[in-house]
């Protein structure tokens, strides 16, 4: 199967501290994959590198076969049109209403009629359970509602690659389950490739068939979610079990 995402020997350091050290990741088109790891191990950084928001120090990044890290500004803009990203802090535009935030990617693409934009925004907001909040400003929303608006904005343009940074952080278990259900339905409909970073390891394991784990700049696990408990790596086992004793 063709690769939607391919990173080869990806490196990124801040000062003398390497956050990513020769990381190799390959995601097939239409695949759903989870990324876990302790705090500050470069999970969000990896997503930003895949979106071209950060420059790598070494290695290669390919998105849908096109080299991202050596792209010109115009090529990068073109590649980003096929990528949807949910940020850890939601990154909602403060001066826009919920409706305008969600409609924004469609309005800016210029390829969708006003009628279709209205309909898609309405459908997406209903899917994330935010019908009736269209005219509110982000400052008037709770943390969970902001997360769902950001999710709606990432999904509305139906990009081929979706990168989610903590999509369920701050949400209650019922809403979390609904969000995963929504992502599953969206993926089944659009066949988008999804990479999810989450601290909710148990919830993520139930949703994604494949997990990656980053630790100390290296990829310590890349395999099926249901086999991660029996990984030979003691660091991986301790992390997923949440055990107090161990190398972590």
């Amino acid at each position, binding site marked *: 199967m063709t690769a939607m995402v391919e990173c080869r020997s990806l490196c990124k350091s801040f000062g003398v501290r390497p956050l990513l050290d020769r990381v190799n990741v390959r995601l097939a088109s239409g695949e759903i994959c989870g990324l876990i790891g302790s705090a500050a191990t470069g999970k969000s950084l990896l997503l*930003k590198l895949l*979106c*071209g*928001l950060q420059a790598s120090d070494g290695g290669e990044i390919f998105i849908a076969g096109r080299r991202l890290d050596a792209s010109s500004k115009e090529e990068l*803009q*073109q590649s*980003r*049109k096929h*990528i949807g*990203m949910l*940020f*850890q*802090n*939601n*990154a*909602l*535009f*403060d*001066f826009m209403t919920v409706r305008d935030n969600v409609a*924004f*990617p469609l309005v*800016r693409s210029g390829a969708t009629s006003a009628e279709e934009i209205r309909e898609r925004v309405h459908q997406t907001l209903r899917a994330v359970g935010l019908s009736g909040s269209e005219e509110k400003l982000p400052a008037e929303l709770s943390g969970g509602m902001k997360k769902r608006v950001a999710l709606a904005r990432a999904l509305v343009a139906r990009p081929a690659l979706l990168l989610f940074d903590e999509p369920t952080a701050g949400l209650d278990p019922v809403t979390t389950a609904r969000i995963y259900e929504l992502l599953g339905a969206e993926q089944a409909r659009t066949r988008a490739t999804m990479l999810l970073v989450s601290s909710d390891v148990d919830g993520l394991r139930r949703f994604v068939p494949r997990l990656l784990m980053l630790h100390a700049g290296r990829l310590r696990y890349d395999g099926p979610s249901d086999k991660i408990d029996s990984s030979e790596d003691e660091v991986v086992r301790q992390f997923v079990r949440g055990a107090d004793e161990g190398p972590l």
Partner: protein
Amino acid sequence: MISTLRDICREVGAAYLLLLHVGTLLLRGRFDRRELGRSLAAMGADSLPIVALTAFFTGGIMVIQAGIFVRRFGAYGLLGFGAGYATLREVGPLLIGLMFSGRVGANNAAELGTMTVTEQIDGLRALAIDPIAFLIVPRVLAMVIALFCLLLVGDAVALSGGALFGKWLLGVEFSSFFHSFADNLKLADLSVGLVKAAVFGLAIAISSCHFGSSVRGGAPGVGRAVNAAVVASALAIVLSDQLITVLFK
């Protein structure tokens, strides 16, 4: 000392590069018109009351200061000229520029800084939108237009204030005040003030956009950026005022 000098050079260099980038996009017409309209309303129309109030009392202060000499030498017929000359060429642009920097420049730096630390700028880039074309260029254009227009209104209000205070404190008739003003001042006097307003607007816009969009370090970083933007704007206003005054004396 050397480190501070290096920091200043780096900031000035980065602001200059931003100015070039903004100029290029502006010439190509690549900026967001909707954001320009929103910025003009927020930065121009919403600043009108405070600018008008400042200008009114500025006109009054000019008359109070001039009053001492007007009384001593009996130069009642020169009051309009004196107050108008100082207001149009110097005091009007300087005070309104500093007021604009405190209200609009600081707000702009804080807004862009908050957008930077809350990943909204990254959010724009992730949506394949150039943040400079979408956010910075409209704001720079709006600040230049707004300060230019605010100065026109401010000058008129300041002169009206001067005329009112002249009548109240010195008994100078409105007709005498405005004749003295119209007979002795030229269009060039107004133009110098307007050139200053446009240059001050550009200086405030570039410094606030530069410091706002290069924030590092969360909320304290936003505070530092606002502080730096206001200080840099005030310095740029005073330096460019000096230069324009020498050039157009």
